[in-house]
């Protein structure tokens, strides 16, 4: 290394990130989300720490943005709270940069301690009066960037949920009525009653049912009419942070996006459950079985 590089190397190695921070991020904790936890939220290109301040209902709840090692200039009047927690040596909370976030973008839980819980209590409920912010405040640009980051995370695409169609969409399969019934039971993952309902146009195939049927009869994907979206309970489970590593691996392995990997994982979990007679499938268990079998 040249002399300037030596000098720079010496300067950069003079500080080592604290072990609690490194260990917390490496531990890959993905519990159910609740107030008082600090999570890293992430989508490609955007990463943000958030403090959970509200209960998560249907996968969504109120969060306040937190920045490790970043705060506005000393003369800024923007509401911010520099704190130290069990994990973070220097963390700035931004009470006015808050909003509902879905657990589909949560990545890893960094902290859930008495300190972080107390901070969440202080910041819940939201401020009744949001102070006017000076557009020329020296911290205004950082504030705007954090708001943009939060908005990007909030807009992260969801696994499409199934909604009830107003009118069932008619199904046309090749072969005799008996053959159609057999196809539906064998490849559609439905029982005889459901198969009859489908053939009488009283209900519509789901995408998870349609895909193997299309393959079995040699049709292109999407050729059979089907409802749009994934079972809502399954969608919620497949978007839980505990499956993010698995869906990322699947996406990397297959060249898909993370969203496409989630949808395909959900479809396989649905097909797996459909072969069973359980009225309310344990989606977590089904996904775990699939993930365990993946390379």
């Amino acid at each position, binding site marked *: 290394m040249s002399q300037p590089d030596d000098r720079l190397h010496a300067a950069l190695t003079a500080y080592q990130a604290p072990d609690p921070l490194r260990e917390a991020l490496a531990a890959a904790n993905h519990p159910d989300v609740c107030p008082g936890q600090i999570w890293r939220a992430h989508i490609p290109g955007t990463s943000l720490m958030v403090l959970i301040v509200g209960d998560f209902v249907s996968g969504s709840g109120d969060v306040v943005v937190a920045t490790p090692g970043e705060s506005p200039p000393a003369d800024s009047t923007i509401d911010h709270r520099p704190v130290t927690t069990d994990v973070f040596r220097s963390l700035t909370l931004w009470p006015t940069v808050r909003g509902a976030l879905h657990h589909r973008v949560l990545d*890893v839980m960094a902290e859930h301690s008495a300190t972080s819980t107390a901070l969440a209590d202080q910041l819940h409920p939201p401020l009744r009066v949001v102070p006017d912010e000076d557009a020329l405040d020296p911290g205004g640009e950082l504030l705007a960037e954090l708001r943009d980051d939060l908005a990007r995370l909030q807009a992260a695409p969801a696994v499409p949920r199934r909604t009830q169609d107003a009118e069932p969409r008619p199904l046309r399969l090749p072969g005799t009525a008996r053959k159609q019934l057999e196809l539906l039971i064998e490849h559609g993952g439905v029982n005889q009653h459901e198969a009859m309902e489908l053939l009488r146009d009283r209900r519509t195939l789901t995408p998870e049912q349609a895909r193997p049927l299309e393959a079995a009869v040699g049709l292109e994907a999407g050729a059979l009419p089907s409802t749009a979206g994934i079972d809502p309970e399954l969608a919620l489970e497949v978007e839980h942070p505990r499956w993010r590593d698995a869906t990322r691996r699947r996406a990397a392995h297959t060249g898909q996006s993370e969203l496409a990997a989630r949808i395909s994982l959900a479809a396989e979990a649905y097909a797996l459950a459909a072969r069973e007679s359980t009225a309310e499938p344990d989606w977590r268990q089904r996904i775990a079985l699939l993930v365990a079998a993946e390379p």
Partner: protein
Amino acid sequence: MAGQGLMSIVDEIVGLGHLGGPATMKMLTARWRGATHQFYVLAPPGGWDEESRLDLLHEFLSERLDDLTDALIAVGADEEAVLKRTSRIMKNWLIDQARKTDTGAIRLRLEELLRADPGFIQLPGHSQRWTLACVTDTEVGRDDEDPLLAAAMAVSDVKPVRWRDKTRRAPLASGPDLTRILSAVLACAGPGGLEIGMLTRVFRRRFGVVITSHVPLDDDDTLADRLAAPPTVGPGEEPAATARAAEVYAQLSDRERRILLHLDDRPRVERILGVGRSVAYHHIAQVRAALTALAGEDVDVEAVVGELVRLARGDAAPDDGQDATLEPSATIKEKGAQRP
């Protein structure tokens, strides 16, 4: 940067727990080069070079290494996000430094006044260009600096602000006075309006706060010639010089006052201010420029500088002179010695 290199940055940061890995160092220096490029107000005399950039990078790291390291570790395995976070932290630190300079402070103050007064409007599609709301003239206005400066200088009864707070920069003038000058300058500019950068330059010259940060430190002919010129002090000029010196002194920041006696001694300025070479150069150049600007005024420059020396000695902190006496540097000393 190639994907291979980016992966190794994240691996390094997470694996090492510090920012000293080779790929990370390469990334940081590249990002720093890009970040500093646009901050001309922080550029040393002669402009940026590798040495001055590295010098300022070390200053940045001395203040922000801990925070930068924690922030990048927290980002996780996303190279794009790591790069964005690095640039953001660097940029915000540089903005803070720029705001401490006169140019940055003047610009912010003018923008504040322009936005607060409905008599000023931004030209549609030109967020940085301002004009008077009442301008209806279709004649193309002036945008060369000298007529604009003349318009600014023609505004009378602009009173200096008495300023005793050593922790904050002295204001140029009161808000209403600055608004009157803005109106005069924009009226001179006409319906085409002016970019905020041009307005800032005009106000810098109007108030003689700083002309340029590119005054050569070792070849300051303008100042030397002026200091060597025989003094011509007329009756009644002494009080005027004292008053002008007080005005100039009030406009200097606390840091600039502390280095007033040491303009030829850059290492000492570094020690006094606790900064690196490039920033020391910058501050020295600012003070020199303020002194140089006196040449264009109808005052006894020597008397003004002599008074400035007296004021600076009176305010000098004990630490500033711990390695030497409070004798002024050659430039100022030469000036003081020529006083009649």
